[in-house]
């Protein structure tokens, strides 16, 4: 299996594609072209792309675009998607108001 650990390996030039303008991460409005550019900047993992571009950091937390980002990386680096880890999942599962998380009242039934 090809390794992506050597970050200086030659992955070829970044060739623009006609659909580079389509939006991959809808929450943060990150395009396919921006993600492909980030991979050529050295971001070889879903976590790195996410931290570099904010893809998957919006309201849905990457539940929509996670797999798309992964397949873009796999294609650009010429590896199989299963080789790449998904982004870290974080609590809470859904957005929660601070006043709910920080509620101090205890209701005894």
């Amino acid at each position: 299996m090809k390794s992506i650990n050597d970050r200086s390996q030659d992955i070829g030039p970044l060739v623009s594609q006609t659909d580079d303008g389509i939006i991959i991460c809808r929450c943060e409005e990150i395009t396919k072209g921006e993600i492909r550019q980030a991979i050529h900047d050295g971001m070889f993992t879903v976590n790195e792309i996410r931290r570099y571009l904010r893809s998957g950091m919006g309201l849905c937390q990457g539940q929509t675009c996670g797999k798309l980002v992964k397949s873009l990386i796999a294609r650009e680096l010429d590896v199989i998607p299963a080789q790449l880890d998904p982004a870290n999942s974080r609590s809470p599962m859904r957005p929660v108001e601070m006043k709910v998380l920080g509620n101090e009242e205890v209701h005894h039934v």
Partner: protein
Amino acid sequence: MSKHSDVIIIGGGIIGNATAYYLAKKGLSVTVLEASKDIGIGGSSRNGGGVRQSGRDTRELPLAMWGIKNLWPGLSEELGVDVEYTQKGNLRLGKTEAHQKILQGLTDKAVSCGLDVRMINGDEIRAINPYLSDEVTCASWCPTDGHANPLTATLGYYKKARELGVRFITESPCFELRKIKGAIRQVVTPDAIYEADKVLVAAGYDSRKLLATVGIDVPMMPLKMECLVTEAEPPMFLQMLGTAEADFYGHQSKHGSFVFGGSSGFEPFNKDNGTPISSSIGASCTCRGIIKYFPALADAKIVRAWAGWLDDCADHVPVISPVEEVPGLYIACAFSGHGFGIAPAAGYNIAEMIADGHSTIDLSALRYDRFKPKQ
């Protein structure tokens, strides 16, 4: 693939990446070995983003002040990545007389080092930040402090260093340092042995086990800290915030979301399950603290919470030092939660230390052999 370079850096966090970048700029060949699959996955990208001088120990303050004067303002341009550096001051808030005493003590120390920081009262505080509750009665105010984006700063250094020819190898956990003829020479990983004339260990808490292979110890422990982030909110304020009790700290990012870090009091006693995972009480406790200071944020939604390890030094100040008893070996670890803000200055000065044998800022107060038993 050559296994030899002028310098090997162990740890692909912001300290390792920044040092690699400044060494490459000086024309040295550098290899960075990162244990995990991701660059900058440790404390470098898990912190609250403070770029502060106020509240810092006087031993590390010169480094913090030099970096804010000389490196942070031009960093986005230099790296070609927006690090979102915002220099709009730091408010360290207090509500009680005990808080006032803590803040006054910190302020007096910083003033003695030449920092522009002063105590202000409730009205002055609300003139700077009108969203703070009336419970807030005192604060230290340092107008030259600020914040930045830890994610893009860490990866920005990585990107730029890589462009300059630095080799980064991920999933390469180093488990042994080897000397040849008394000087550092080899770094052993499961896949390969790398060689260099000089080696920098900048692997956070993991530095401790590795340094032990050449008989060196830095007294530090891993300490878990937790952060959370809200959805994007309308722009409210630009200052960095903290509190006397350190209940929470944070800022509003360029994107609009509020990033806050906080503690529940149980951090040193968290179970170590091998990964830094948020506890069930952490986010709730931090939210309670925030709402008392910022009632207006009660309806802001938390979208994500995370945790990370600090490499907490016995005296809570970093170790940045050459190791004379192992010629060629250098240490930069035990940043104790202060690593992000001083990282550019630390990287710049460590690169000078390695390449030129001396640094712009005198780092002798941060030496590795400063730890003495009590008398």
